[in-house]
């Protein structure tokens, strides 16, 4: 039995999903992290005489230039910063809030539970994009607002997930005995319960980062994004849309960047789910 599970584990690492996922996320992540060093100009240097140069036509511009004569390659790499920031920060924020809400409502139950769960119901009944459009019209676009909006729309998923797990663990022997010997609630919550439910949370989070990157690009595409001087994938797609038939490279490369990043995260998430959450609680 033990040898079987060992080879199983080994097999998992040889999994195609895992390999592809790590390559994509790792490669893009590294490029983005070192983007300031790779492209000191930040992709904002503008040269109107080089507008819309096709890929490989001009030395120094392997992916061509955009309508303002800026280096598409530099913008794609630097632009990843915004997308990854939005994706990661909003997922982290949602995880923290979701875990706390989920732990509290699952462990204590009662009135607190009812309040949190009704919040969750309301949240799930609201069509997110429509709300996002409305709210951004009020509070304006920009990085912070976008992140806050995504957090608000997503903490519920974690709260539900965590609450469900807590409910199933609450009456287990190890928790009951901890309680019996007088361990404080806060320790039970964070030392005993939390580690037992991190698997599904991490899975959900990976998938969430992927989804947030897509949402960010949608919102930017709808004209609700950040300062256009700062490159971002969604912004580049929106800008390049009018040139799609005459200068495909302006929007195809950022589009590919989104596709590959999100794909990498999804592959990793899918693989993690098989590894950390075999019961499939996060599959819905």
């Amino acid at each position: 039995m033990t040898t079987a599970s060992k080879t199983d584990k080994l097999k998992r690492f040889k999994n195609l999903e895992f390999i592809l996922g790590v390559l994509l996320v790792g490669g893009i992540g590294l490029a983005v992290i070192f983007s300031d060093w790779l492209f000191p100009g930040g992709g904002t240097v503008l040269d109107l005489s080089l507008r819309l140069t096709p890929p490989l036509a001009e030395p120094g511009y392997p992916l061509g230039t955009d309508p303002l004569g800026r280096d598409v390659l530099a913008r794609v790499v630097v632009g990843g910063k915004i997308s990854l920031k939005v994706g990661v920060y909003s997922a982290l924020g949602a995880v923290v809030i979701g875990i706390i809400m989920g732990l509290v409502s699952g462990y204590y139950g009662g009135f607190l539970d009812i309040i949190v769960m009704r919040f969750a119901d309301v949240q799930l009944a609201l069509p997110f994009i429509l709300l996002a459009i409305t709210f951004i019209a009020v509070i304006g676009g920009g990085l912070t607002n976008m992140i806050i909006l995504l957090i608000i729309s997503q903490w519920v998923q974690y709260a539900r997930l965590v609450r469900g797990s807590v409910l199933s663990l609450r009456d287990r022997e190890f928790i009951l005995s901890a309680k019996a010997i007088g361990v404080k609630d806060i320790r039970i919550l964070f030392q005993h319960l939390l580690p037992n439910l991190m698997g599904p949370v991490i899975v959900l989070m990976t998938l969430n980062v992927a989804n947030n990157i897509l949402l960010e690009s949608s919102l930017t595409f709808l004209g609700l994004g950040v300062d256009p001087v700062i490159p971002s994938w969604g912004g580049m797609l929106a800008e390049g849309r009018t040139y799609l038939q005459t200068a495909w490279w302006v929007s195809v490369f950022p589009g590919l960047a989104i596709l590959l990043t999100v794909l990498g995260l999804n592959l990793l998430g899918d693989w993690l789910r098989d590894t950390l959450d075999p019961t499939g609680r996060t599959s819905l």
Partner: protein
Amino acid sequence: MKKTQTLLSRVVAGTALSAALYASAQAGSLTVASPQDPGSWDPIDTFLVNWASVATNVYDGLTYRGPDLKLVPGLATQWEEFDDGRHIRFTLREGVTFHNGEAFNAEAVKFTFDRLLGEEGAQGPQRSNYTAIENVEVIDDYTVDFHLSEPDPVLLTKLAGYGAMIVPPEYITEYGDDHFNTHPMGTGPFKVVEYNPRENVQLEAYEGHWGGAPKLDKVTYRFIAEPATAVAELQAGRVDIVIPPTIPIGMIKTINNHDGTSVVSVPSPTVEALRFNTQSGITTDERVRKALIMAVDRQAIIDSILAGEGEMIASFQSAQSFGNDPEMEPIPYDPQRARQLLDEAGVEPGTRVQIDVRGNDATFGEVAQVVASYLQGVGITASIQPYETNVLLNDIIPAGRTGEMFQQKWGGWTFDFDNTAYLMYHTGERWNPYDSDAKLDEMLDAQRSITDQDEREDLLQAIARYTQDRALEMPLYSINALYGVRDRVKNFEPAPDNRMRLTDVDVAD
């Protein structure tokens, strides 16, 4: 159940319908893509230019202004002014009928303006443009007198459009305003036969039009908001004309490269400027404002970003505008001098300014980025803050919460600098949140009571020069109206103000 049936019948009938839309390929019918459904076709309800592009075909005004921008007789054959312009007598065209056969006469004119200036009109935005009219008096069946409380030099122009379109009294009295909103009726060359809110409106030729029957049998306006979608429809041959403001500059090449479609452009009264916050930040200093203007090569922006589809402006009006002085030169592009001025004003290199723009304006987004890069050239770091258009227009600008510079796009449909200048520079106007200049106020008020047009033109030109001296904004350009047109459309003349009458337009195969 009923709804499911409608849907089902729609899907089933769909093939027939799409055949009908493809039938725009048959002679006699034309399909137009318009970016917005005004929701109501009642002239007093709206100010949207896309209302006008359809309604110009459905209604007539007392006067008419075509693509050449000359005022000619419409439903009035002639007019005479008395009492320094406080009293105008119109002689009306005889034998004109509305689409339902109702006769057009002096009563219809009186009804139209009583409605516009009364309770019904007060609920809409149009009334405020016609408040100079005190009352309309019926002299006989085909003569009416307009009595004005003060002379209004642009009234005759305003009678050619929008709220002043003549509506049928009996029809409205019988069916009510709500019915009229969606089943409009006028004396124009086309009548509305079907209106599907947010989808399309279908027009048919009105054979009995006083100006002669139109050449087309049928015109369908489809509402398509997304520029890329409208252009795709044009390329696929399912739309014959895409009207402004839809086509972004970046898509001109796409349309021209495609077989059977091309872009037709015409200089329009629409102007763009970056206006300055004269109350806070470095832009309170006139020298700084001038320096910022000098730092930007506006001609280069027009040549590259606008692909030549625009013209430099010296003040905030286009070349066709009454009050534009062709002799007046724009402040030149001179980064050297700009740096000097900034130095004199004690502005440190690296000082930051913020430019507020409309977030969904693709072309201007590029323009703003180029401006920012020119400013960088004189040591000013500009950031661009995109806002949702309506937030910028209704909140940020009127409340005076903009950055140092903000985008102002202005339609100027009266082609008269009065309208623009008064709203932009007069103390207390909503488009003028920052500045108050007694001398400017005085000039603006003075020109309104002058009926001698030459004298008024001189004063308007003086106003334009004065705003340039004070560098109240960075005038950028006037921009052309862009129409995407299929080759099968004949005799199409693009209208600078988007109000195109399709009487003479024809289609060929």
